[in-house]
């Protein structure tokens, strides 16, 4: 780092951008983990269906398999965009 970089306005460092992006993608990939192998595919297809009606982004559909007292629960979370 030279003296000049102290004078220039601070740009966001690329490492912090990397960290943020990783946190998001890793959280998403973990959400379908440990469940049946079809979960990621199911998530993709659900996303496509939702998008036919509502413009949502990649993270809008969250699919999760939970086990509760011997019972498997498929949990779907769809976040819709805020109404104008």
């Amino acid at each position, binding site marked *: 780092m030279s003296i000049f970089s102290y004078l220039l306005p601070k740009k966001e460092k690329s490492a912090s951008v990397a*960290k943020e992006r*990783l946190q998001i993608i*890793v959280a998403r990939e973990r959400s379908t*983990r440990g469940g049946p192998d079809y979960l990621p595919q199911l998530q993709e297809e659900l996303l496509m269906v939702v998008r036919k009606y509502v413009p949502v982004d990649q993270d809008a559909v969250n699919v999760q398999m939970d086990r509760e007292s011997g019972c498997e629960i498929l949990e779907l979370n769809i976040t819709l965009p805020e109404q104008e």
Partner: protein
Amino acid sequence: MTKIVVVTSGKGGVGKTTTSAALATGLAQRGHKTTVIDFDVGLRNLDLIMGCERRVVYDLVNVINGDANLKQGLIKDKRVEDLYILPASQTRDKDALTLEGIEKVLDGLKEMGMEYIICDSPAGIEKGALTAAYFADEAVVVTNPEVSSVRDSDRILGILSSKTRKAEQGEGDIPARLLLTRYSPERVESGQMLSVEDVKEILAIDLLGVIPESQAVLNASNAGSPVILDRESDAGQAYDDSVARFLGETREHRFLTSAKKGLFGRLFGG
């Protein structure tokens, strides 16, 4: 008791083979009888890093198929007592690596009194990597401070938690520790590279060690001598610390900050 350790990463070229060679050598140096197995069928490289490529006669697939017995397949290291190498085959197809076959080899090594068996995994999250990891009691996840490597490590961690024999038998996750390699403190300090804290926070596993980006690794591979034998080098020392931690010792992490620059360097340096 024999401990089977898989060295894995998901992403290719991050330092698995370098690490497998260093870990196995370091364990043997401390008197633990150790075999390091190359699971990278078709792309064997461990023999070169260990410097025994000219002594390879038989390989893992030969031993599995019964063309050679285990003793014939094992190469005894010439520098370090108690260290053995089992090379991968260069040509044969990957389907030769059956789980039954691998299990027989591992049982044979246990009977020989191996304390550690280090499995150098191929890249990827497909069959080859799964085979290398299947019988593991413990994992070392090799990661570079870079987005695709961290993401792949996380995926491998997910696979380890469900696809090992232990997991299948309901014994839960095998312990997995992070080895962050090719670390460049200068680039971390200037904000261009993920820091060890960043990676630890994202992957949320214990840290075994941090290996700096080092010319010594290239020198070692040129010479066919595991970098841990280069006692003078930063990478050699960092690997030695990691082996000590692997065995339960507490050692402070080194080589995490760049060599201090003087005021002049800080004002005008790059």
